[in-house]
């Protein structure tokens, strides 16, 4: 194994540890915040931003703390491989957690085929509708939905700046 590979593996394990500790804590806090503040908090994207915030903090970690976390993670699971599909098993750790403890990011990563390189044969799809042209419609739907959220936010909190993830 070359040193670069090792770095990748350590980085993945750090992710595992974070997803089970700090990210979860942030998610819990953000959930509490969401419940406490009601929909205005949701509209402002506070809950959605929590995992991203956790990831940013992970990115800023010093090398020693990464190393320490790797050791702790290694006690639970060690996956050594250059194969993307093997490393993807790291994400399956989320399946062991109850829904309440999972972040939006982890729930999204449970989607099979969530990565561009995957190809999934959806055998029994009724195929009532074609995929072609759907991007345009999806964008229309998104625009319509986001406009509605903006309008509702403006109604609830006039003048407030509302950031919608992805914009």
């Amino acid at each position: 194994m070359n040193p670069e590979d090792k770095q990748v593996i350590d980085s993945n394990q750090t992710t595992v540890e974070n997803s089970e500790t700090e990210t979860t804590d942030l998610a819990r806090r953000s959930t509490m915040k969401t419940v406490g503040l009601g929909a205005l908090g949701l509209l402002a994207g506070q809950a959605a931003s929590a995992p991203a915030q956790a990831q940013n903090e992970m990115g800023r970690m010093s090398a020693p703390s990464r190393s320490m976390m790797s050791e702790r993670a290694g006690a639970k699971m060690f996956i050594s491989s250059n194969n993307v599909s093997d490393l993807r098993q790291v994400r399956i750790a989320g399946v062991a957690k109850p829904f309440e403890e999972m972040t939006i990011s982890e729930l999204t990563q449970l989607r099979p085929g969530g990565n561009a390189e995957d190809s999934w044969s959806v055998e029994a799809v009724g195929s009532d509708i074609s995929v072609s042209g759907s991007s345009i419609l999806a964008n229309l739907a998104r625009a319509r939905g986001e406009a509605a959220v903006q309008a509702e936010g403006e109604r609830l909190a006039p003048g407030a700046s509302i950031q919608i993830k992805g914009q």
Partner: protein
Amino acid sequence: MTDAVPVGLSLSGEQLREHQRLSAQHVTFSVTESCPLRCSHCIVATVPVSDRSRTMPMDRAESYAAQMGSLARRGVRFVTFTGGEPLLARRQLQLLSHAAYDAGIECTVVTACHWATSTATAEKVVASLPAIECWQVSTDEFHSEYVSEDHVVRAAKAAAKLGRNVMVRLSMSLPESAGVVSLYNRLRDALPDIRIFAQPIIAMGRGASVPSFSEMAEVPAWPCVPQGMVVRFDGTVAPCCAGLVDTRDGHPFQYSNADSAGLEGVHQEWCTDPLLQLIRASGFSALMPWLREIAPDHDVLAQTPRHPCEFCVRLWTDPGVGPALRERISRDENRAKVALLARDVFGETFMLEQLAAAASVVRTDERFEASGP
């Protein structure tokens, strides 16, 4: 000539997401459960043609036709008519498809083509439904017992001649038989310019009695692809056009009758159902820890079908599972999380808008309490 039938759709992750996204923009109407065929693999328990008790009455069709505009305003862009054999309810089809077309909704019909008795008749029937753009003609070894493939070829050619979008749907047991390969090749030769979509028979409905291969896995291999809600002939609503399309009780996806709630109302219920939207956005994996806790001896934990529809149908055979999962996912913090998930995965804000509306009511109440009586 081929010696293997290409089965299913191969989608990239992003295409799968797009396909799933369309579920909220697609509504199916099962206009009748009468059918001249009695195929052993059908997921719908159909009744003979002489039995009209399970056909949508005209007054109900008129009511739904008048509501197509409101569906379109909610973002519905596709309507499919199925059954039974939907061509047995041609007046209802004409009424509903015209209304949908006028509202800017694209219409599809799925038919087994018993009506295509001659080329002239086939063209006449297709022409009588000008608002239906997509014609999905279905056939397979089971249909062949009741309707010859000549009918299917005539119907496909008639629809193509009249400028419609045509696709042949072929159901098959796995592993594929020599008979179905031969049928595929004959259709390929007869309809060289028309797409043929083959799908395996799933172990559900009458299809559960048809021997076919069911693969097992650690968790279902892809998330739920419900294809949108299905409004049945009697106004009841199914959550999907697959495993639960003909199952009215015993599962947790129970919505109002479209007669009382209106099409817009039931579409809103479908779009804001946290349990459905969770398995659509994340798949069944997210439910597994709860399931292990609620029903540790459930057979789907010991033997987990790879196909999400087979998993889903078997999951609800334990009557305690549905209510327990429903109770958990309906807690405020969990609903909020699914609302964010639906927005992030599909760009849909139905649930967020619902939460926002509920929150505005709460805020109004708080103001009232703060100002005192």
